[in-house]
Each structure stands twice: as C-alpha cells, then as structure tokens.
C-alpha cells in the first residue's frame, strides 16, 4: 500500500453537509492525488498536490477543495455534499518527478443520501 492510509473507509452523509476525507502517507512523497472511481468512468482526477500548500485542480474539481498543510496529509473536502458525489474516492502518491506509477490507498466509499 506504499504506506497510504485513507480515513474513513466508509461514510454515509446527507445532502448539503460538508465532508472531509483524509489521506495519510508515511513515506514523505511530494506528489499526492485524489481520484474518484465510478462505474463506467474509470478513475478521474479531482485535485492534486506537488508539495505543502501547492495544490491544483484536476478534471472533476467542481464541488471539491483540498488542503495540504503537511507533507504526509492530503485532505479532500466536499463543501456541500450532493448525491452525484456518491463514489469511491482514492488517494494516490507518486514517487515522481517524471513518469512514475501511482500507488493507491484502499479507498473511501462515500454515500450521499
């Protein structure tokens, strides 16, 4: 698992509530990513970070924000959860720079009712 821990593993929340998912890594890698996985859509990049306080948007960033105040932690926040954000969320790290594979955590299954 490349030392990646995601929490919580499962969460059910109501529409309109804020939700924060946490990704913690133990190996001090600079590059961290949040992807969402939906049936028929593969994995889509939400946000990514190249270091502390250095974050940027991916292809499906609307409704999400991120923060990275420490190298080891990358937080994903759903500002006001909607049913369309029901998904499995994966955090990943890359040993980069250059082309390096992604190492994923085991995901957080989020259900928005």
């Amino acid at each position, binding site marked *: 698992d490349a030392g990646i821990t995601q929490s919580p593993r499962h969460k059910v929340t109501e529409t309109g509530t804020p939700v924060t998912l946490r990704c913690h890594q133990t190996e001090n890698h600079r590059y961290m990513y949040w992807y969402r996985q939906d049936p028929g859509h593969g994995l889509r990049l939400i946000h*990514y970070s190249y270091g502390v306080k250095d974050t940027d948007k991916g292809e499906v960033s609307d409704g999400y924000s991120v923060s990275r105040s420490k190298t080891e932690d990358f937080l994903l926040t759903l500002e006001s959860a909607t049913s369309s954000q029901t998904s499995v969320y994966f955090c990943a790290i890359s040993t980069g720079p250059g082309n390096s594979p992604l190492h994923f955590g085991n995901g957080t299954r989020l259900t928005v009712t």
Partner: protein
Amino acid sequence: QQQVKQSPQSLIVQKGGISIINCAYENTAFDYFPWYQQFPGKGPALLIAIRPDVSEKKEGRFTISFNKSAKQFSLHIMDSQPGDSATYFCAASLGTNAGKSTFGDGTTLTVKP
C-alpha cells in the same frame, strides 16, 4: 473528451486461455502507459508499464504490446488463472505532469476454472 478508450468492458476467459484488453489514446504527447489491476475493496495496483520507445514489454505472464503509429496499446495475459479475475485499467500520462494520469474505463476480467 475521453482521451483513453478501453475495450472490452467485460471479458470472460477459460482457465489457461489468453486474455486481451485493448486501449487507444488520442494525445500523442503521452509518454508513459501503465496498466493497473484492482481487486474488490482494494485500490488499483501497478501491474506493468511501457514507454513509447519500445513495442513490447513482458513480465511473467503479462505482456504489453504498443503500437505508436496506431496510438494503441494492449495487455495480454497468458495462461489466465482464476486469481487473475479482477478489474484492469489502462492509463496514459505525460512526463511533465507526474502522476496526472488519464484512465480508461476499466475491464472486468473473469477467468473460469
């Protein structure tokens, strides 16, 4: 615009047979093409990867074939085993955007005993 198209969506193969999954990409600047394997409840894990300067890479029973002119690459699993039953994702990325991978939609492989 989907930049990486993967087929088939699902595949059933008999034990000992060959499994073939295909991907096509659009962006000719992509320079890293990994395949990931995902088991239920787990994050994707790197299986094998190729760069466009080679046409084939083999690791054990797994082979990537790469056709740069056709902008296609495929995963071949020889002597498929029930333990290979999983979801497989192809991906493509740019070296200048470490880890910002574009994924195919995934192929669910079932190997029947």
